[in-house]
């Protein structure tokens, strides 16, 4: 078959697909999965990961009431950067996505309920997209709220100076960047964990390897750093955190990536991993006893 024929056939196939049905099925899956994941006791630990810094900041503000010196407002910026870049991106979102996204398929296998969805007239690719979107919505909603609340709690108690920093100064720009970083982290890690759950019976071990990869990526060659989610996120953060400790000795400084390229690169990474997940789910068989 010539390339032209192949292209024509592909176009014809795409036109013949019932896209409206697929969209409806994705909508149903998203509603069902979001309800199951967002409002579930099983997900309490994800709430904990997302909101423990918020609780800590509330206590800090209560204890230090009236003792906030506007001279230290710049320090809050670094505190926020550490919270988002180190705690949220490298720890909380990472582990939350591991819990949420690996459970989307692997959890169904463990609970022996995946066959119900395989027996519905749904393309398995649609199933993956629906579940991924549901996981993305759950994780993004939780962590965006947490980052937003943290941002407010960092600056709100500085009174007029804090408000000025937030609304007239660099505050809103920082917030926008961190919200974008949070969303992209959820999409990036989410897609990777979804694929890992289809590749491995126990995704904890590859998850730990991924954590090591993401942590050690600054010392990798420049090209290898491009295969890390945090590499792209780092270039979107408004504040650069210096690498400290023994890791700093081996850090390889990769060429900076333009913000639009970082967003595009991360979206491409997520899309590529999602396509891989679609291939993997197509070959998945229901053999619970072998799992």
């Amino acid at each position: 078959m010539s390339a032209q024929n192949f292209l024509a056939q592909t176009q014809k196939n795409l036109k013949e697909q019932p896209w409206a049905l697929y969209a409806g099925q994705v909508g149903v899956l998203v509603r069902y999965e979001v309800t199951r994941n967002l409002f579930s006791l099983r997900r309490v630990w994800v709430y904990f990961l997302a909101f423990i810094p918020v609780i800590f900041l509330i206590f800090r503000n209560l204890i230090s009431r009236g003792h906030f010196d506007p001279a230290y407002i710049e320090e809050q910026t670094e505190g926020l950067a550490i919270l988002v870049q180190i705690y949220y991106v490298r720890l909380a979102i990472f582990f939350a996505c591991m819990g949420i996204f690996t459970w989307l398929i692997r959890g169904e296998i463990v609970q022996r309920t995946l066959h119900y969805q395989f027996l519905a007239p749904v393309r398995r690719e649609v199933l993956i997209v629906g579940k991924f979107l549901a996981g993305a919505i759950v994780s993004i909603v939780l962590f965006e709220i947490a980052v937003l609340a943290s941002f407010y709690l960092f600056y709100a108690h500085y009174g007029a100076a804090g408000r000025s920093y937030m609304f007239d100064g660099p505050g809103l720009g920082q917030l926008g960047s961190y919200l974008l970083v949070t969303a992209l982290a959820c999409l990036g890690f989410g897609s990777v964990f979804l694929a890992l759950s289809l590749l491995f019976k126990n995704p904890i071990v590859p998850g730990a390897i991924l954590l090591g990869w993401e942590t050690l990526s600054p010392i990798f060659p420049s090209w290898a750093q491009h295969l890390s989610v945090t590499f792209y996120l780092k270039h979107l953060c408004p504040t650069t955190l210096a690498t400290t400790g023994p890791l700093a000795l081996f850090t390889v400084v990769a060429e900076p990536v333009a913000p639009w390229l970082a967003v595009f690169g991360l979206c491409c990474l997520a899309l590529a991993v999602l396509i891989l997940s679609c291939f993997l789910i197509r070959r998945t068989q229901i053999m619970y006893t072998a799992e």
Partner: protein
Amino acid sequence: MTENRQIVFNNVSKFYGEVLGVNRVSFSLDPGITSLVGPNGSGKTTLMNLLTGLIKPTQGTVHVFGLTPNDPVHFYRLVGYCTQFDSFPPGVTGYNFIYWPLRLHGFPAEQAAKLTAEALDRAGMAQVAKRKIAGYSKGMRQRIRLAQSIAHHPSVLVLDEPLNGLDPMARAESIALFEALAKQGMHVIISSHILEEVDRISDRVVLMSSGYVVAEGQIREVRREVRDHPMQVLVRCSNAARLASAAFELDHVVEAKILADGQSVLVRTRDVEQFYLLLNKVVSTGLVDVDTVAPADDDVNSIYQYLIGSDGSPT
């Protein structure tokens, strides 16, 4: 999509690593009730999982009305499968267990609700639909799975041990439902260990042992193919001794036994058609009045015993 309404297994094999699931299975099924019969581990569930696309064949093809699971949108509208897996999504109610899959089928909310109510009603689960499935008894869980598998009005209904855990009343209701569905032109494929009930409702049988199809077809046809075991015919008549002596004159009659009531003869013959001809002749002479003639071993239970044996190994 072709117009044929057959289910076709074409040289299908399934291996789980080095373990045989089923081997070189080829047959086709017409509408009606088909029973898969065989001992544990004979490959019944594997065959059902292959048919419904939950597992893929190592070799060969399975077509349902010309479709394969590679076209899930059309395929799974045709097929309903009540599996043996006694597991449910956590926290789900009976109603939602049926309603959400119907929404995935593409039914609008109102129609999905209507179909859900209808399925619950047919399975006798309407009263408890709002309760969580976690609180159901085994029989109720069985029936809610059955309700889900029929809710979208499939043309092919596959039921893996659907009578397990049901009390006699629920069992009778389920069997009546299967018969009604088959009368509507559906394929109803059942695996069951309860041979008496299978025998009563089945149009045809597929006997399996150690991953192989030992025999398949209409029960009487299968029985006739079992030539190692002469067929048994029970005749109740006015003169049992006379009939027995006439039967003994035929070469193919192996045994003619007068039963304790003195009015019945159990004949074992290798050619049942010839025996029936003899019976006609005897009756036409007027020496013997025949009350009833009934095959004594052309049921699933006997075929199972003859072909597979009571220990589950093929004979």
